[in-house]
């Protein structure tokens, strides 16, 4: 049965608090990116079909950006979303692939993205840990 949730609902409160906790624990990198992706539909489930759909649309954008040698924020964001989707789907090869692309491309970027190299490198060095966190978050959100 569909739950009737409003902004004062304790589940919403806990969900937001959890996301805030994720942000605090893992920093802007994971938290700030997971929030818009994971919380896109706050009442939705992070199921595989939805994640695959998100991955398909963003990988298309990312590939186009890569092949036209773009290093702007939109390109890097698409790459990052792809990496997160792969993590949420538990696909380590995909995580490595997109993190490699992000680490390569961010160095030519400007602004905040130019400083994101340590983040991509962290994922490349800890892909299993990154996936473990992502999948744990997914399961938690899906149970809320």
């Amino acid at each position, binding site marked *: 049965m569909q739950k009737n949730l409003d902004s004062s609902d304790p589940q919403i409160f806990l969900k937001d608090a959890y996301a805030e906790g994720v942000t605090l624990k893992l920093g802007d990198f994971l938290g700030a990116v997971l929030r818009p992706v994971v919380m896109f539909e706050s009442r939705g489930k992070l199921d595989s079909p939805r994640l695959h759909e998100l991955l*398909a649309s963003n*990988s298309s954008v990312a590939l*186009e950006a890569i092949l036209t040698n773009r290093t702007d924020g939109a390109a890097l964001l698409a790459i990052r979303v792809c990496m997160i989707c792969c993590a949420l789907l538990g696909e380590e090869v995909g995580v490595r692939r*997109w993190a490699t*692309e992000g680490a*390569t491309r961010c160095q030519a970027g400007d602004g905040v993205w130019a400083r994101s190299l340590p983040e991509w490198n962290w994922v490349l060095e800890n892909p299993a840990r990154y996936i473990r966190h992502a999948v744990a978050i997914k399961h938690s959100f899906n149970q809320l």
Partner: protein
Amino acid sequence: MNKKRILIVDDEPSFTTLTRMNLERANRFEVWAENQSSACVAQARIFQPDLIVLDVVMPGQDGGSVLAELAADETLRKIPVILLTATVTDKILQGRQGVFAGHPVLAKPIEPAKLIRQIEETLKQAANGGATHAKKFGLF
């Protein structure tokens, strides 16, 4: 019959070795494999390929920046390029008629026969004055 010279650039040695073997078995291609993307342009100047098969996501220098370098080189800009990637699926490629940013793109893993068909088709198009990556970059 003159064999067509194919340069394969991919960071996975197992992939380039296998692809090289499969192409050479067709007896129509002379193949050079390169696993360092940053060496692609230099290798292309030496090998003078008729076509380049280029992976998209590689450490160090990715396919996008290699394409830009090729397009900036007067001697290499006319060489047609086929892109390989595991970042998109066949389904997505079908929706784009197998073309991204003006280049034919094949999804990995790829069957040797499919790659050979694409190589021959792309070489044929290039011989007929088809678009090359240099044109896509607006250099002509």
